[in-house]
């Protein structure tokens, strides 16, 4: 049970201690974060590479659910928890040198703890608490540079986020008023009272609330400003990782409670709007961070469209798109560290830093969905699912995806050609490949997945099978509920 609790608790402990420690020894304080994150990784990695047959279920404080809080680690949750430790290590501020380093490290650790909690918790209110923690910690991190635009962007982000949080909380309260419980599994046992209009309203409020971080249209207008002014590694974590964890909450609600209602249609509709907004704005963007920020909105629209598909196909497609985007977008933001100026100023960058430009082309091809890169397979999954669905809205979604793929290809190729243009004074760009090492590693991972697509797909199918099975989740948390159910014909 240690892999479930320690990766959440140890970063919190380290975050509390890092500032007092920094007064005694700067070196120990600096080492604390990486040590704790590595410990989490060591604990979680075996569970992910060789997953236990049954999910890990942990009642915190030995208070049996639904009275206490339960942590639920199925393959999907463990995979995401693992990704949190891994990506925070990749995008950790290894160089340091900030006069307020201890505070910054503390906020990073708080963000890591909350992200792990978002992946593992099986209690709606507990998820909300972790979501809030992630929000508050990210406010501090995105304003790190302290410049005027960064502060303005942060205040806007704070206002949208607070608005969303209030609505999400209202949704959770509404749900509690109708069911008397906050445990996800117990909500799933008897979802009927929630499938009426009041229940759907609760879902809508939660979609708005959690949609702020998940970059859902129309709650995403904070995204480009924040990602353009925040340090690139923070943008990488927020766009790549935290947005996916917000999506994960909605996925659990969809699988356990709202699968048979109009909720998927709402998501499909919002998803279509989101990808249109994201990709067309990206096409018009004038600088590199904004371009990939808008493109990330478009990709998350694709995730929402995928999750609206019925049955386990939708879950499979959604998780595949989400994981692909996690890898690619984090890597692209890793490049944005040096390529922060306008697109024009980057013309000819390939001359000085051919490796970085080649990496960009690789990720762009995968984003567009050129075979045999993984992006192709994820898009095919969504398109095939939409075609099977057959409704008018599904065909609209299909057309929308094909159309925006063309737009996506246009702006990404336009920039790629610009990178390879011959110019007199090529911009300096990166000093050495150490500066984009995380992107390099992620690029290698992308190629590895391309070469071994079959085993990865099998693994993904096993993950999905668990995550998409409502009664499986319920019986893992409430074994007695299953027995009770079998008695009734």
């Amino acid at each position: 049970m240690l892999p479930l609790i320690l990766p959440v608790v140890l970063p919190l402990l380290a975050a509390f201690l890092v500032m007092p420690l920094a007064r005694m020894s700067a070196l120990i304080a600096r080492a604390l974060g990486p040590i704790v994150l590595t410990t989490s990784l060591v604990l979680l990695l075996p569970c992910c590479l060789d997953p236990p047959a049954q999910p890990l279920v942990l009642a915190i404080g030995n208070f049996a659910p639904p009275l206490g809080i339960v942590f639920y680690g199925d393959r999907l949750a463990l995979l995401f928890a693992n990704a949190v430790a891994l990506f925070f290590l990749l995008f950790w501020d290894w160089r340091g040198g900030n006069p307020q380093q201890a505070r910054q490290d503390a906020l990073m650790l708080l963000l890591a703890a909350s992200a792990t909690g978002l992946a593992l918790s099986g209690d709606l209110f507990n998820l909300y608490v972790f979501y809030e923690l992630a929000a508050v910690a990210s406010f501090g991190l995105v304003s790190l540079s302290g410049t005027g635009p960064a502060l303005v962007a942060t205040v806007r982000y704070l206002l949208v986020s607070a608005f969303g949080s209030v609505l999400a909380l209202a949704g959770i309260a509404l749900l509690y008023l109708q069911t008397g419980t906050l445990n996800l599994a117990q909500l799933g046992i008897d979802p009927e009272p929630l499938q009426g209009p009041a229940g759907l309203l609760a879902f809508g409020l939660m979609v708005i609330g959690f949609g702020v971080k998940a970059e859902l249209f129309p709650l995403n207008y904070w995204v480009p400003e924040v990602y353009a002014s925040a340090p690139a590694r923070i943008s990488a974590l927020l766009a790549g990782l935290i947005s996916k964890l917000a999506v994960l909450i909605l996925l659990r609600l969809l699988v356990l409670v709202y699968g048979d209602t109009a909720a998927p249609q709402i998501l499909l509709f919002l998803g279509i709007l989101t990808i249109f907004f994201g990709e067309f704005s990206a096409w018009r963007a004038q600088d590199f961070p904004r371009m990939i920020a808008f493109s990330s909105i478009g990709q998350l629209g694709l995730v929402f469209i995928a999750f609206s598909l019925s049955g386990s196909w939708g879950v499979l497609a959604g998780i595949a798109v989400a994981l692909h985007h996690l890898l690619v977008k984090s890597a692209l933001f890793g490049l944005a560290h040096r390529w922060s100026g306008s697109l024009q100023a980057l013309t000819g960058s390939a001359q000085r830093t051919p490796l970085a430009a080649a990496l960009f082309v690789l990720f762009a091809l995968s984003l567009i969905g050129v075979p045999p890169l993984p992006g192709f397979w994820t898009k095919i999954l969504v398109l095939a699912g939409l075609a099977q669905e057959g409704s008018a809205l599904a065909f609209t979604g299909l057309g929308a995806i094909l159309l925006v793929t063309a737009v996506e290809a246009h702006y990404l190729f336009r920039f790629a050609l610009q990178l390879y243009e011959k110019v007199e004074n090529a911009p300096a760009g990166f000093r050495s490949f150490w500066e984009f090492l995380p992107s390099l590693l992620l690029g290698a991972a992308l190629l590895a997945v391309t070469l071994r697509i079959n085993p990865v797909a099998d693994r993904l199918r096993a993950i999905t099978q668990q995550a998409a099975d409502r009664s499986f989740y319920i019986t893992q948390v409430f074994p007695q509920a299953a027995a009770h159910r079998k008695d009734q014909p």
Partner: protein
Amino acid sequence: MRNLAAVLFIGGLGFFLFVLFFRLPLGAPPLVAGAAILEEGGETVGAANLVTAVLLAYRGMDTLGELSILFAAATAVGLVLGRRQLVVSDPEGGFILRAGSDLLFPLLLVVGLYVILHGHLTPGGGFQGGVILAAAFFVPVLARPRRGLDHGLLSFVEGLAGAAFIGIGLWALFARDAFLEPLLGKGVLGHLFSAGTLPLLSMAVGLKVGAELAGLMTSLMEAEGRES
């Protein structure tokens, strides 16, 4: 355009709330978890104040999260405001203000500690008592702005109190294999020494909240002083 969107949003929300009002089981909500906790909470946890039993035992993880949120907010404010040495320009308060703050300090201290230590018996607990403690230390600063507060000491108390909360949780993890399970026996319901580790957790919460809020308010005041 913006006004139109606002009107649409408010209209929509109003409609939803109106519809909702007639559909909800107001007055007689189903209480699945709530009823069970009311039934067995006193016996299982041993705290006369069931709210504290829920906060620190049944949903202790949430409380740890809330503590971290407050900590994240205080840290982020510190990060934005910077921490240069302060040159407070506010004049010292008059005699009445200074004498009043001197008199209030011990009173606020006692009330704050009382509320924290009796959290498992009477209404109150770590969060409420912690705010009173913060006031106890902030009122003298208002009367004598030049003296300020020792931020180093505050961050030390804050960090150790937070670590103590998690430490108690980890102790339970290694002793009973369950993070944050109450230890030390339940005692007699209603006695000061009852409810196991809950009073200790209350104390940690109170000290942490107190140190955090006192530090936060002082930094805000110092930032204001710098600007003027």
